[in-house]
């Protein structure tokens, strides 16, 4: 069974979102997503300072097997990317909720957080797959 930490929020495209306060969130892909992808070997990160809309394709995670688009979970501005992933993309496999985080963003509207899935709701979604 893949891990779905209770304190995080989720979207059905398999990104997780951590509330860092002041409308800032950290985003990565879920344990379930990295299991599906297999060994991650390349990350095409989003551009820092770019403004994105919810569901925009902003990054790509590639495993040996396949490429997977990463979507902006909400509208906002990209503040920072995880530069460690350039040399160590495998962190997404080994620690998807920790060292494998992908980017931080400032939300256009912090209230948008309410539209995200809870851990329980996300667990139900992937159980249906």
């Amino acid at each position, binding site marked *: 069974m893949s891990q779905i930490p209770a304190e995080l929020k989720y979207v059905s495209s398999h990104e997780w979102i951590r509330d860092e306060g002041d409308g800032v969130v950290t985003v990565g892909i879920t344990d379930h997503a990295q299991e599906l992808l*297999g*060994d991650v070997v390349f990350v*095409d990160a989003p551009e820092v300072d770019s403004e994105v809309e919810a569901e925009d394709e902003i990054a790509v995670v*590639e495993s040996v*097997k*396949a490429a997977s688009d990463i979507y902006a979970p909400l509208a906002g501005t990209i503040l920072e990317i995880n530069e460690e992933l350039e040399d160590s993309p495998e962190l997404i496999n080994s620690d998807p909720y920790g060292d494998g985080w992908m980017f931080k963003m400032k939300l256009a509207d912090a209230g948008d957080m309410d539209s995200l899935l809870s851990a329980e709701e996300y667990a139900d979604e992937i159980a249906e797959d």
Partner: protein
Amino acid sequence: MANKTPLYQAHVDANARIVDFGGWDMPLNYGSQIDEHHAVRQDAGMFDVSHMTVVEVTGSEAKAYLRYLLANDVDKLKESGKALYSGMLNEEGGVIDDLIVYYLTDTHYRVVVNASTRDKDLAWMENVAQQFDVAIAERVDVAMIAVQGPNAIEKAQSVMSDEQKNAVAGLKPFVAAQAGDLFVARTGYTGEDGYEIMVPDSKGIEFWNQLAAAGVKPCGLAARDTLRLEAGMNLYGHDMDETVSPLEANMGWTIAWEPEDRDFVGRKALAEQKAQGAPRKMIGLVLEDKGIMREGQEVVVNDEVVGVVTSGTMSPTTGKSIAMARVNRELNEEQVLVQVRKKQLSAKVVKPSFVRQGKSLI
């Protein structure tokens, strides 16, 4: 219901990720496909290839039949156990399948074809067989295990009886021997030394577990794909199919033009294509920019699409993205662009053979 090989339970017990492959439930990986890949390049790994179709061709005209059925010439096979790689073509010279044929006696050959093409292969073989005194029979009583890597032969022999070891001692590349109830061939699909071993289905799991205990790492289809691509070996349905001739798929060496009076299915069409020059050719690509080339992506020169990637991946041995691509015959650039998702990335043109015996060639 998907087919299951005799080794299926061993994969489940090892927590393999199981996927459908040509109607078979097969292990994709047992954790990390990269670790499995490296095990084969550096030590020894094994693959369940029992899904592949084994066909016994017997009868007084077995040789004449295969000389007509295949583009390569089984008359080259003089020593019992000797194997030959060949395309089986249609009348237009397109590849119905690629296969290995083992010579056992003049009236008995063993053919191994792909799993995903089983039905059409058997239908084609039966159809051509009507003109010959020959019988075609599929073997469904064997498991097949490919043991590959620099230490594969030593480790495989460590689980054999003395009698079996004697039977395979000094086996040359591309030759097989019957060793007790094992049929052991020094062949493979990884670019490494090793065996492909047929074992009675009832003993398959026991033999698999013995190999695992001897330090041979179970490897899934995902690693098999990166290994064969590094070795520059074609995958049917991706690098060639019925719309592609062997001349367009780096399989020219598998066409036996001599003797000239041997007719085989597709010969006429191939000869015409050879005389005019095949319209397309296969090349290898090594990506110079960051990214990963994938099947179906376009190859671009001077803003013009000149071909398509037929297989592409990240190569675990070289750390680079490698690909095979089919391009227009005229292409002679040393560098091309590949449309990788939204970007055009630069790739170097090379011979489509990237790694052999653990060493990078690029």
